């Protein structure tokens, strides 16, 4: 059985699913990712922080919208990790 992991934001800011407005999203819902892959960006005080997957698995769904304001500790996405399959 796959384990459900939550990707959590360490910082407050604005969440982005794309590297820039014209580009494709980093990862689509249902797509598989590897540990270390960037899944989104958080803009904090004109800086950009990359949110990375910590495990291999399937990014099941995002819990926040693109360009949504988020708090530190907020759950951003659900990852179905392969580790315990």
């Amino acid at each position, binding site marked *: 059985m796959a384990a459900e992991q939550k990707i959590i934001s360490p*910082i*407050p*800011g*604005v969440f982005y699913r794309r*590297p*820039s*407005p*014209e*580009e494709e999203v980093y990862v689509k819902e249902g797509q598989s990712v590897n540990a270390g892959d*960037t899944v989104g*960006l958080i*803009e*904090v*005080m*004109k*800086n*950009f*922080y*990359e949110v990375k997957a910590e495990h291999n698995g399937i990014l099941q769904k995002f819990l926040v919208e693109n*360009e949504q*304001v988020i708090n530190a500790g907020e759950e951003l996405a659900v990852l179905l990790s392969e580790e315990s399959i």
Partner: protein
Amino acid sequence: MKYFDRVLIANRGEIARRIIRTCKRLGIQTVSVYSEADAELPFVKEADEAVPIGQSQAKMSYLDIEKILDAAKQTNAQAIHPGYGFLSENPAFAKRCEEEGIVFIGPRSSMIQAMGSKIEARRLMQAAGVPVVPGYDGKIDTVEEALRIAESLGYPLMLKASAGGGGIGMQLVSSAEELQKVYSSTIQRANSYFGDGTVFLEKFIENPRHIEVQVVCDHHGNAIHLFERECSVQRRNQKVIEESPSPFLTGEDRRKLCETAVQGIKNIGYTNVGTMEFIFGNDHSFYFLEMNTRLQVEHPVTEAVTGLDLVELQLKIAAGEQLAIKQEDVKQNGHAVESRLYAEDPLTYFPSPGKINRLTFPGQDVRLDFAVVEGNTVSPFYDPMIGKIITHGSTREEALQKMERSLTELDVDGITTNLPLLIQVLQNRDFQQGNYTTQLLNKMGNGGIGIVKG
């Protein structure tokens, strides 16, 4: 005398408070506009009126041109002061103000447009007899062409986005291989950041100093300078400490630099206050870098040495008045220094938003331009700079001593700030001797590992 009855400030934080102060002294009413995140900040309460203009993200509030114009009409503001950052150098905003019959406190939109293009600014200044960094500002269409031009200029070079600025959109290239590698990605990034992929090539000046000249011009052909500011203490191309006069310039350097700046702005017909940025090589040669068509963050050091109020000058000029001062009336008295307090880790430059539990200000002989008071929350949405500390002395030594004392007395609790770094710079021997370049923080081991956009 009153220049306007009511001025709207299209900005936030410390600069909004600073503009309000001068307006109050002159009997001008002020209107603040604010985002959801800023409702509790002092600049909202200190204005005569305050209008909420939307959500916390800047593009839904402080960058929303129509919302700001609506707020100005609703409050019968006759003029808008844009501060720095946000819409201050946005020609579309200045144009919309012109169309609505609201005075934009700054130069006309066409001038902002011209100076916003680095290539055009370069060409205009060169035509005015101002030295620019050796380079190529013609059209570059292909990487082969870029390589050929680079060969004739000689490496190292900077590949720069014409629409870039403030350290964003430039790439150092030391060889043909490197240029080949970064050429298309630099254009791509310029396209995505600035919507304009035009690039040009400039010689890379190694270990430079960054010195700028404050200029003031009215609508009657009068143009003067208010001397220079030394801005070489930088982290990731962002200024940290500034001073005036520059400890590097000789009297002859200063005269040449300031006269050249005035020659440049007279030639292009500039109006209101502005700043011409130059880089200085070790051999005292200087080159025009770019022009900022707005009030500068570090304007207080110029105010401290000249005794002038730059916001007052801006208001008078925008109202069509003639400059009341002549060049020979402007004197550099003593020495001034400014430190910028950032809500960020001093080593990594990682931002540190959060609540300020305690804020103790230094006692006396210091000017404090702060965005926040104790108990305020520094939000994650805007620039990390939360305040400026400015000291003045009859000598550089005295100004630096006052600064060090002020920084030691300053106490911020609840968020991480760069205060330890500021004190470290003040105690650095090279800095104390005035013997430093833009590499100072790197040399001190504070290059910053930071975070970059992926």
